[in-house]
């Protein structure tokens, strides 16, 4: 490995002597030699096991560490079990302490976990179902806790943390504007391009504007914004709360008589509740703008024509359908992110797992919610 290790590798030399055999150890018996050390340690037993008396001579040893000493002691123990009398010779005083400290002891063999693929798979499957149900149960409980603490804050407005709320709105809302605008302009443009391209075959390319208007306002604007915020702010909330949990900051709040729900979670969830509708509105405008630009350049629909076609295609309720969903999405993202953050255990790995699960779960729930809303609006014919 390194020059030093190669220079003086550990070695066992067998020298027959008057009373039995003498094994002269030389070189560096240190962990530096890695595998070589282990092999030589095994060779002590190999060389001597057929003899009655063995003297291990340490005179030429240039270095010894715990690993080397342990291997020598283990070899002595193995030989003793085979009724070979072992003596150590020329042990330097500093080595004798080390050899004494590392005397042989039997360690319980590490328990190897039982392994059965089918059994484990079934167990995992069952566990994940129970976990999912329990998670849902806890989620409902958490929602109740959140609502009751909001009611408490509403009754005691002085406990409301305006500064924290404004800070959260800046983090969640204001700082997300550029990315939200960017992706929505692009998606609006893509929808317009595909609409024009596909509908041209039926000579119906002017319907593109209706397509963009309805699709963007009812579904895409709010969906893209929610997914982006779930990834961007949901993960941040989980990571913040998770690391606070790991450093006992949450416990510190509790023992001060403060509720983490009120101090940490309320500003974040409220921040989401306020930011997400605003962002959705911005997203709608951005996507319509993107659609308009592409319709103009690619489809030859002038902005004036675009505006008048759009006015015919949509009504206020088209816009409201989208914007009504935003606070619900915000609540889902905020509650899942907070709950997962508080469920973090001691390890860094657990924090990573919680952040992943928070983002995956909130994106999934956002899409499920959107589906439920679609069914709801269809059945009330809105």
């Amino acid at each position, binding site marked *: 490995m390194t020059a030093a290790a190669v220079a003086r590798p550990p070695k066992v030399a067998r020298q027959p002597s008057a009373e039995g055999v003498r094994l002269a150890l030389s070189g560096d018996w240190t962990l530096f030699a890695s595998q070589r050390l282990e092999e030589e340690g095994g060779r002590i037993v190999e060389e001597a096991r057929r003899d009655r008396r063995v003297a291990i001579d340490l005179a030429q040893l240039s270095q010894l560490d715990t690993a080397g000493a342990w291997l020598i002691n283990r070899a002595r123990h193995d030989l003793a079990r085979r009724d070979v009398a072992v003596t150590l010779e020329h042990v330097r005083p*500093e080595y004798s302490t080390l050899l004494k400290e590392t005397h042989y002891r039997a360690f319980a063999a590490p328990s190897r976990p039982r392994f059965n693929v089918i059994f484990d798979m079934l167990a995992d499957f069952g566990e994940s179902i129970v976990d999912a149900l329990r998670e849902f149960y806890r989620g409902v409980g958490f929602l109740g806790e959140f609502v009751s603490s909001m009611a408490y804050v509403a009754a005691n407005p002085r406990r409301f943390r305006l500064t924290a709320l404004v800070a959260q709105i800046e983090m969640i809302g204001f700082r997300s504007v550029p990315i939200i605008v960017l992706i929505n302009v692009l998606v609006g443009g893509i929808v317009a391009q595909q609409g024009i391209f596909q509908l041209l075959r039926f000579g119906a390319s002017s319907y593109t504007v209706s397509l963009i208007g309805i699709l963007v306002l009812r579904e895409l604007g709010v969906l893209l914004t929610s997914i982006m915020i779930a990834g961007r702010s949901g993960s941040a909330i989980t990571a913040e709360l998770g690391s606070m949990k790991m450093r006992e900051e949450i416990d510190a709040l509790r023992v001060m008589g403060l509720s983490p729900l009120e101090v940490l979670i309320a500003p974040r969830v409220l921040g989401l509740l306020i930011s997400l509708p605003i962002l959705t509105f911005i997203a709608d405008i951005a996507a319509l703008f993107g659609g308009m630009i592409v319709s103009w350049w690619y489809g030859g629909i002038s902005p004036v024509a675009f505006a008048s076609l759009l006015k015919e295609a949509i009504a206020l309720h088209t816009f409201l359908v989208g914007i009504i969903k935003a606070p619900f999405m915000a609540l889902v993202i905020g509650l899942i992110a907070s709950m997962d953050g508080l469920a973090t255990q001691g390890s860094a790995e657990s924090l990573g797992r919680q952040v992943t699960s928070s983002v995956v779960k909130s994106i999934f729930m956002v899409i499920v919610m959107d589906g439920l809303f679609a069914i709801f609006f269809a059945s009330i014919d809105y």
Partner: protein
Amino acid sequence: MTGSSTNANGAAQQRSSRDVIISVRDLVIAFGDRTVVNGLDLDVYRGEVLGVVGGSGQGKSVLTRAILGLVRPRSGAIRVFGQDRDALEPRERRALEQRWGVLFQNGALFSGLTVKQNIQMPMREMRDLSEGLMDELAMLKLELVGLSADAADKFPSELSGGMVKRAALARALALDPELVFLDEPTSGLDPISAAEFDELIGTLQRTLGLTVFMVTHDLDSLYSICDRVAALAEHRVIAAGPLETLLASDHPWLKAYFHGVRGGRLTAARVEQKDEEWKPAPTTP
């Protein structure tokens, strides 16, 4: 890595005990316009236990981190094992880093690994050993630091503060380093555990022939295991030497440190104890 400096671990150590293992010259460390360390000189000799003391914010941890290469000094020279870490090739630097072990103040155990896996981590990454031998060596190290075998499969979050320190020490010793850095090893331990830990460090130091660089606030540790003490104040080492020399010093900070309310009580007690030891000792079993 040169062969001659590695093999000095054994017999050579006894003979040339004044062998300098860490040498710091004219070190300046500053963050922005805040100077933490200014013109610091320090030598650590092979086979000694050096205690580093100093007020909070006087740069003890920063000095340690600079020696370990975690903080870049503004100027000055740091040589460990006679080598300047920054001037080394990456391969040589790795070899150098395998010759020291570090016990961080809060243990810094990898939270996703069990205690045994933590201890085996350096062996697994740096050496080529069989699983069986790694298991045995990890258990041996655990026993050397005074942890029971059932701690091996626990995760760091399941350990008490004292156990974390012990497990972290076992990890620091995994590759049998020549030099061990201990950052406040006894902080947060009860007096009994702290005394045990001091004793443990002393035993390991004698057994393994370690050089120990110990940052500490614990006056008891200074009395019981340190061969020399370096005091950091005014951004530099104001005094380094055997504890007696520092106790006799007239420097106002040292006086406050050792003869203040807390230090004074302990110093007085220790001196009394020393005096008793001076009497012709009755035969003890």
